[in-house]
């Protein structure tokens, strides 16, 4: 596909946000362009930040809590621009070799030879492609050094093992998503990574943050996915469910619970309510059982506030001491 910035589209038409910005787009999609979700709601500020990234080749880092839909937001923007994109999750398992490439043994003409197999970065770099690094804050130090070089806008990329220097294609873009860094790192296994992140922070041209949807919008989305809860009593029920979800998000920020409810969790809870007709049981199946044993009493408190009912996990029902 050729990169032609000539074709322009207005942000108002493509994303339904109030802005006269014109952005370049590709005439048609290829296999790497994500599917368009017609019901997707674009956040005004985040969309503008991402469009600046696409239009002017800026490096954009998107922060937000788990489940706020950070990666989806980038994908949906790319989908409407017909911009191919690929997501790479930087959890602790991906290594430098996975990103850059490595030597592997292959059979050629019946003989074994070692071949350099290109990693995802060199491959993406040489074509119009938006490369998205998910969980950027969990990346291992060796991985971060690879990315460091990519962050320079026209930074060439050196394959040391190959003695090759790659120039990025003009249509190459780089994005990353990270969970809000505020709690420090809970598992204690990745000291130092955080520090490196801060050293890298200023290499990102734009840092945008995505928060959870306003309650009313989240309720509307849940109801659009579970139509059986779209009537009057259903609305009250879903409102209470979203309130519980918001309490878990606040609790997560305060460090009281280590699991929080994403909009996805609320939707699966709602689906389970439609099946079991019992909000407490459905809540236990879709969320409480995922929580750490020691945090369930706290979650039960959240539930009691919003539903005026006790979960079995509640401290109220704990057997008293001798």
């Amino acid at each position: 596909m050729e990169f032609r910035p000539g074709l322009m589209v207005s942000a108002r038409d493509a994303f339904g946000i109030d802005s006269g910005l014109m952005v370049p787009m590709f005439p048609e999609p290829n296999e790497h362009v994500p599917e368009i979700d017609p019901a997707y709601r674009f956040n005004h500020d985040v969309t503008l930040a991402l469009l600046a990234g696409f239009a002017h080749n800026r490096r954009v880092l998107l922060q937000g809590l788990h489940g706020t839909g950070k990666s989806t937001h980038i994908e949906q923007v790319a989908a409407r621009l017909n911009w191919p994109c690929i997501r790479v999750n930087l959890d602790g398992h991906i290594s430098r070799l996975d990103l850059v490439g490595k030597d592997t043994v292959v059979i050629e003409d019946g003989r074994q030879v070692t071949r350099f197999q290109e990693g995802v970065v060199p491959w993406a770099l040489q074509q119009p492609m938006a490369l998205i690094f998910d969980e950027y804050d969990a990346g291992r130090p060796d991985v971060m050094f690879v990315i460091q070089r990519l962050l320079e806008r026209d930074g060439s990329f050196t394959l040391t093992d190959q003695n090759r220097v790659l120039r990025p294609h003009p249509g190459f873009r780089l994005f990353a998503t990270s969970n809000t860094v505020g709690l420090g790192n809970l598992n204690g296994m990745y000291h130092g990574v955080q520090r490196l992140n801060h050293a890298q922070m200023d290499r990102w041209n734009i840092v945008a943050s995505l928060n959870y949807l306003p309650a009313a919008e989240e309720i509307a989305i849940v109801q659009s996915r579970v139509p059986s809860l779209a009537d009057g009593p259903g609305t009250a029920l879903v409102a209470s469910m979203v309130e519980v979800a918001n309490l878990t998000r606040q609790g997560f920020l305060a460090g009281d619970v280590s699991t929080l409810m994403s909009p996805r969790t609320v939707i699966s809870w709602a689906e389970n309510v439609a099946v079991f007709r019992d909000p407490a049981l459905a809540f236990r199946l879709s969320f409480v059982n995922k929580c750490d044993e020691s945090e369930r009493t706290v979650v039960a408190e959240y539930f009691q506030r919003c539903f005026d009912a006790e979960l079995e996990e509640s401290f109220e029902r704990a057997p008293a001491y001798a």
Partner: protein
Amino acid sequence: MDSTATADRTVTPDTAARRRQQQIRQLCAASIRALAADPALDFRGDHLYRGRTVLPLNAPHLYPDDAADFGSSRGAADGMALRLLHSDASLHARLRPAGQTARLVFELLEQFRTESLAGQPGVVRNLRVRHEAWSTQFHRSGLTETSLGLLLYTVAQVCRSRVTGEPVVAETEDLIEQTRGRLSALLGSDLALLRRLRTRQADYAEPALAIAVVVESLADSAQANNDGGAERSARKTREQFSLLVDAEEDAWLPETAASGTSPTLADDGGAYRAFTTAYDRVQRADSLVRVELLHDYRRRLDKRIVDSGVNVALLARRLEPLLCVPVTSGWNSGQEEGMIDGSRLSQLVCSPAERRLFQTERHEARPATVVTFLIDCSGSMKQHGEGIAAYVDVFLRALERIGVASEVLGFTTGAWNGGKAARDWKRARSPRRPGRLNEVNHLLFKDADTNWRKARPGIAALLKTTLYREGIDGEAVQWAARRLADRPEQRRILIVLSDGSPADGATALANDEHYLQQHLATVVRELEDSGAVNVFGVGLGLDMSPYFSRSLILDTERLGQPEGVRELTCLLERSL
């Protein structure tokens, strides 16, 4: 938050009650943080703090007593959260009337206003439960028998009912009938305004102030034409039922020390000092006990640990991710992917089917932490010596397994009642405010450079009861922190085991009761703020939360048993 409370006969009842209270308090604090959307809120003792500042939540029903049931505590917590959400404290302070009774009424009205804005059904129920419990307690403690008590009670009932639209408490409806009629005649228009203005604090304050002023004048006349019992009843009202809370006055922590609970410290501008340090000592504990006796103690200790059945290997595995960092340490060869391992290329020639020619980097855990246990060796700890030794020893073994350095330190005094320091002070004609007045004795049971095997007899010295005298905590914490600061490890943990506040007879007599306590609180606060050391308080059957922001209550009956070990491990996991 350990909810796995099992009916266990070995637990002493009052410790159990205290732990239950602490669990309730932690749950309530978590609810307040979520409802008020503020991670910095936490209880210290009974008071709610934002970080280091006590919050002026002064409505009397927000402080249920220790015997209150869980529902009541929940209601008080929800009331606090709503107050923080919907009320501007500085505006409230500006509008506050001067008189005692007027202030109380105004405070109540503002609290009721924020509680009337509750949206969630569970919150509404909890608030109602708390209101009914408070009302019943007020009534049944005989306070409504005096005209002043009845007046205040009726005002609370009527106003809450007007603001929230809920009925008054049924039990006392007939009792307040007459007073209610009088109030309605006097204040009808103001009462009617309350509900309409409840979303706007400044507008609501007008009728609220009017009500407060009228009630104050009624209260004055009620007390004036009272018959002789007035003084007694007013005192009874005050004593039995702290009607007018003043959080900023009550909280005794130094950060709120505008009230200066240690007059001596306040006079000295907060500077703690020792009268003389000439007799202070740091001693190796095993040098104070005969060797045969140490070995005897050690045998007792080992038997106790075997009987307790703590799984040291499992504990070590749980502690490892908290205290170690992963480092690359060479290569794993013979892998199916990775970098090519040059030394294996010859294999490819011999056996072309061989795929394991690669190597990957090897990661292993490297200890990056030092842990210090600081043990209070004051007289009251004597009885727990063996239990503490067993408890700490289990942790030391686990730390040893993962290569984490650890220290065990203790603090006591060289004498009772001030010893030589007090003698010198008397010879100097007892100058005022001498500061700390005793011979501080710091004990080394194990230092970080000695491994556990070598230190075994030293740890057993904890069983020597004659070491236990008095306790000067603040200086001991400083000493332990200084020792930690000299260590190369990047993370430093200090765990203080104690069964009470600092206690030293001579110092308390010569200065004041709170002198040492306040110093401890200040030292811990500075350490926590500096972030150089992670400090934890482990209270033996006692709540350490007034001093430490991270603490737990340990049951003395269960020292050295798996539950106690698990609780501390959970606390570390939650905080690191």
